[in-house]
């Protein structure tokens, strides 16, 4: 089995390096094909590992070599394939295989084709390290690695100012969270003496709650950055500047879920600190609603999906925070499939619309892009959580968890958000595919994507539909590692009322969206309509003014403070005082050199003055002898004995 582990881990690396060889050369179709092949190889290996684990095989654990060893610290490159990581591996390799193949078509005309595959595979490699590592340090390598790749890929079109800005924003914001993560690692190390999951978690129950709470908080801060939780969420929407396959892979399916993965992985820790868990759940619920509300009015197709991702991450954190780790992981998996599908569909639309992102300028695309229409609709259905699609199983479960754990506020928030989710998803679908063909106003002739791209998307489609049916198999597998709490509402009647109620609520929301955007005529908003001038619309379209606040009250002051530090403090105080000391000597010399007037008379006077001064000093001394005791104290300080 170790062979497959290595294959799964390193074939993306090989793929990345292989593509990297051709970065300087013009587009080579085979780089994409080879890269995709290698990623698929990783997928196949992961599948073999999955079957191994499913069939009750042992956890595969290898240690490649030492990374750092000093003092008591020992960090190896250790990798583990257990029930949790194999799930993540499956998600990562599957979605990335799809995205790789898809990208061959999507990036067809791009100059940086080879470079793109290099970055993309590097991302997969980093993600594999992240999920497969058997210790926190390895996790951190992957953590930063995906951050780097995310930076590279968001800024892939580096000639675009907005893209590079978004890349830097993402990187820096993630770095803020990474600091928390790093501190979390330090806490783990100094309290448990190791960074290996196994030993560290084993040592944790004996630690005081305070320490564990801090550990939990700092690790979660790391998770907040990567999973774009409030208040570190703004980068995710801006990250949509990257190519769409990137958004699908990184900013929907895999990287952003790393935070959830971390909380799941650290479940023995979070089990010990339910207060932090509750905070995580509350924050998750808040973000779920908060992000969904922004998605309601947004006019950028990719941003809407990004907010939806954010919202769904909130759901996952609710589950993880409430201790339903397997539920969180399950939703993570299901979400990966339908959200990646949604993004790839959006990518097709973008291609067709020549990178137009405003759905108000589309409409009626279902005719020219039938396959995409179907896929996106089904993905949206899955996202909305309609039975029997994947989202139903996973999302409803989270609602159940919250009610079973008696967190009714969270439950109601999540329920309401489910309605919002359905609304904005179908608002998007309706605006893009239904209604009149507004795109004609802009003289665009949309066309369907390459067939192989659609074929590549099909696994996701299938999984988005049927993933829910794996629930029990999955449950049995992961609960070998995660707390095996089954969540059942106590009374059957209650269960049915809840489930059907939710379904009706969601369907009503979908219907409302269709009524508003598909049935009635839609005009391209131009800032004059009554709705656009409402306060709540303004707040939502401006993302609650958070980016503005960051720009005005964080970024700008930082820049100004930097300039002040440089020009005022460094130059005018620190440096000037050093030069000032030197100048004191120089100017004293300059001012007193007149003492040497060259006149013999003056020179003689100086000599006599010297004698007179010494004589007066002698007189002073004579007086001082009377007060000798006091003076001796002072002199001893000067070193005179």
């Amino acid at each position, binding site marked *: 089995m170790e062979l497959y582990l290595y294959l799964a881990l390193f074939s993306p690396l090989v793929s990345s390096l292989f593509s990297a060889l051709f970065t300087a050369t013009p587009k080579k179709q085979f780089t994409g094909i080879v890269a995709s092949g290698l990623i698929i190889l990783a997928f196949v290996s992961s599948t073999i590992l999955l079957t191994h684990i499913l069939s009750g095989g042992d956890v595969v654990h290898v240690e490649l070599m030492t990374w750092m060893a*000093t003092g008591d610290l020992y960090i190896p490159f250790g990798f583990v394939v257990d029930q949790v990581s194999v799930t993540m591996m499956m998600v990562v390799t599957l979605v990335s295989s799809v995205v790789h193949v898809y990208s061959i078509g999507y990036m067809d005309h791009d100059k940086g084709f080879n470079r793109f595959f290099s970055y993309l595979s590097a991302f997969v490699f980093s993600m594999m390290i992240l999920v497969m590592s058997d210790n926190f340090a390895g996790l951190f390598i992957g953590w930063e690695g995906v951050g*780097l790749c995310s930076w590279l890929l968001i800024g892939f079109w580096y000639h675009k100012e907005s893209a590079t800005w978004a890349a830097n924003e993402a990187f820096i914001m993630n770095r803020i969270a990474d600091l928390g993560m790093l501190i979390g690692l330090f806490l783990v190390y100094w309290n448990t003496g190791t960074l290996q999951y196994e030993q560290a978690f084993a040592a944790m129950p004996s630690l005081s709650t305070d320490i564990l709470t801090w550990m939990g908080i700092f690790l979660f801060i790391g998770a907040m950055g990567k999973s774009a939780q409030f208040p570190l969420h703004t980068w995710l929407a801006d990250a949509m500047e990257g190519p769409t396959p990137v958004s699908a892979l990184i900013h929907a399916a895999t990287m952003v879920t790393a935070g959830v993965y971390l909380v799941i992985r650290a479940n023995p820790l979070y089990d010990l600190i339910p207060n932090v868990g509750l905070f995580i759940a509350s924050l998750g619920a808040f973000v779920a609603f908060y992000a969904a509300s922004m998605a309601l009015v947004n006019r950028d197709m990719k941003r809407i999906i990004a907010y939806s991702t954010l919202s769904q991450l909130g759901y996952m954190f609710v589950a993880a925070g409430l201790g339903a780790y397997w539920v969180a992981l399950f939703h993570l998996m299901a979400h990966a499939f339908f959200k990646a599908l949604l993004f790839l569909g959006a990518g097709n639309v973008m291609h067709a619309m020549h990178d137009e992102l405003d759905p108000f300028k589309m409409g009626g695309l279902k005719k020219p892009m039938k396959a995409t229409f179907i896929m996106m609709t089904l993905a949206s259905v899955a996202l909305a959580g309609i039975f029997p699609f994947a989202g139903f199983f996973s999302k409803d479960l989270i609602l159940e968890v919250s009610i079973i754990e008696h967190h009714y506020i969270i439950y109601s928030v999540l329920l309401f958000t489910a309605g919002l989710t359905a609304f904005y998803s179908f608002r998007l679908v309706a605006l893009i595919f239904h209604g009149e063909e507004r795109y004609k106003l802009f003289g665009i002739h949309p066309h369907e994507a390459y067939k192989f791209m659609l074929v590549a998307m099909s696994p996701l489609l299938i999984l988005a539909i049927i993933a829910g049916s794996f629930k029990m198999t999955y449950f049995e597998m992961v609960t070998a590692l995660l707390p095996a709490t089954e969540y059942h509402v106590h009374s059957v009647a209650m269960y049915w009322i809840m489930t059907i109620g939710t379904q009706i609520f969601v369907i009503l929301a979908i219907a409302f969206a269709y009524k508003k955007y598909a049935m009635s005529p839609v005009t391209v908003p131009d800032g004059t309509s009554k709705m656009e001038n409402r306060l709540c619309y303004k707040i939502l379209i401006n993302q609650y003014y958070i980016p503005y606040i960051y720009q005005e009250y964080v970024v700008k002051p930082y820049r100004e403070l930097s300039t002040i530090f440089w020009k005022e*403090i460094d130059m005018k105080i620190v440096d000037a005082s050093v030069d000032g000391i030197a100048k004191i000597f120089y100017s004293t010399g300059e001012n007193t050199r007149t003492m040497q007037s060259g006149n013999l008379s003056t020179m003689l006077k100086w000599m006599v003055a010297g004698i007179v001064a010494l004589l007066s000093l002698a007189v002073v001394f004579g007086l001082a002898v009377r007060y000798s005791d006091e003076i001796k104290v002072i002199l001893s300080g000067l070193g005179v004995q």
Partner: protein
Amino acid sequence: MLDHILSIIIFFPAVAGILGFLVQKDSVRAYGIAVAGIEFALSLWLWFSFDSSVSGMQFMEQLPLVPAFGINYILGVDGISVFIIILASFFTMIGISSLGETKDIKNMIVTLLFLQMTMAGVFAALDAILFYVFWELSLVPMLYIIGAWGGPLRVYASVKFFLYTFTGSLVMLVGMLFMAYFYYQATGVWSFAILEWYRLILPESFQLWLFAAFFLGFAIKVPMFPFHTWLPYAHGQAPTIGSVILAAILLKMGTYAFIRFSLPLFPDASVFYMFPIAVLAIIMIIYTAMVAYAQKDVKQVVAYSSVSHMGVIILGTFALNVEGISGSIFLMIAHGVVSGALFLLVGVIYDRRHTKLMSEFGGLAHVMPRYATIFGLMMMASVGLPLTINFVGEFLSLLGFYQQSHILTLLAGMAIIVGAIYMLAAYKKMFFGEVTNEANRNLPDVNKRELFALIPLAIITVWLGIYPKPLLEPINNSVKSVVQLMHDKAITDEAKSRIPSLVKGIEITKTSTPEAH
């Protein structure tokens, strides 16, 4: 020959430098590369014959110079110093081979060879006066390099560099003389041998004063805030080769000296001053990073980033535990490689455009993709991305200091944020966007000569990031003995508790020998 390999490493370049005067002008570059190559080979030989499992000094040489005053010619290396020596000869080789069109190239090469002598000497010297001799002597070639080949403010910059560091080290010299006097009082014999001094246990009050005296000398060299202002000038005005060696090796003298002198000689004072120094280090990290962000000149960005990184090194040193000190030593090497490479990279663009202002560039990734790639790698290393060389050092330094103070480590950890901010901003300004300046439109990408210098650095950056063990293991062994020495020597309870004792038993060595797995 192995018995005297350190002497050979030190004096070979000097002798070769003198002979270099006789070499004909057009051939002197080849001569320089050859000499530096031999020197590097010698230092590699040193590495191969170095026994990593020994924690003490190796290749010791001893020769009385002024026995009446206790001055001896004592050389030796341990895990702490050996790699910096290798790094020094490596950078001298890289530096000479990357020299492009330079006026008075003969003088430059001879000066560099002399500089190499002083650099090797500082790190190999085990006698305080011998150390001081090389320490001061290293100022002279650098003064000349900055002053003769530098930018418009070169004279100001070079003299400032010289006087500032000279002033600090004079105070340090007084401290050394005090140390020798205490040794004389204790034993009746004059001695400046560092290993002899290690045996001396001083009362705390003396430690505090002497620490302060040594500190001034080292802090200016490092340079620590608020003594850092010579550095931007020196870097800003120095030619590429000067900046490279200054950043890669000369700055490390200060941090190395902290570990060689301050910690083992004054363990109680080290503990006493730990927090004030940590605060200074944090100011260095955050404040200079912000200053770096405000710079308009890319070389100044890298210069200020050096100060910022040196802050992390200082912090790791004053963690006073094995993790922190090992990390800081590793980071010295790492920062040497990375900042050296960054200065070389800045030199590449300066050679082409004769400007270092970032506003002059933009979109260079289009015209110089290879350059952008290497620059990006080095930038990411500088930012401290895992699996690059810097991360190992930074991680260990911060990890080590976390044991001493949580809040301060949290503040110091801001390094990874603020570092990313100025580096990414600078990278964006230079490489991203459209090519706006016509002068940049047809710039040639890095050429073979430049690649010859940069590729090895890139390889080292990644290799040691993934597999730091060849360095970390010997460093670890030597640091352990330093920490144990400090623990044993400490007299105050505070110090005893802050500095861990390693004599806990066998289980430590068990977990730290990775072969077992």
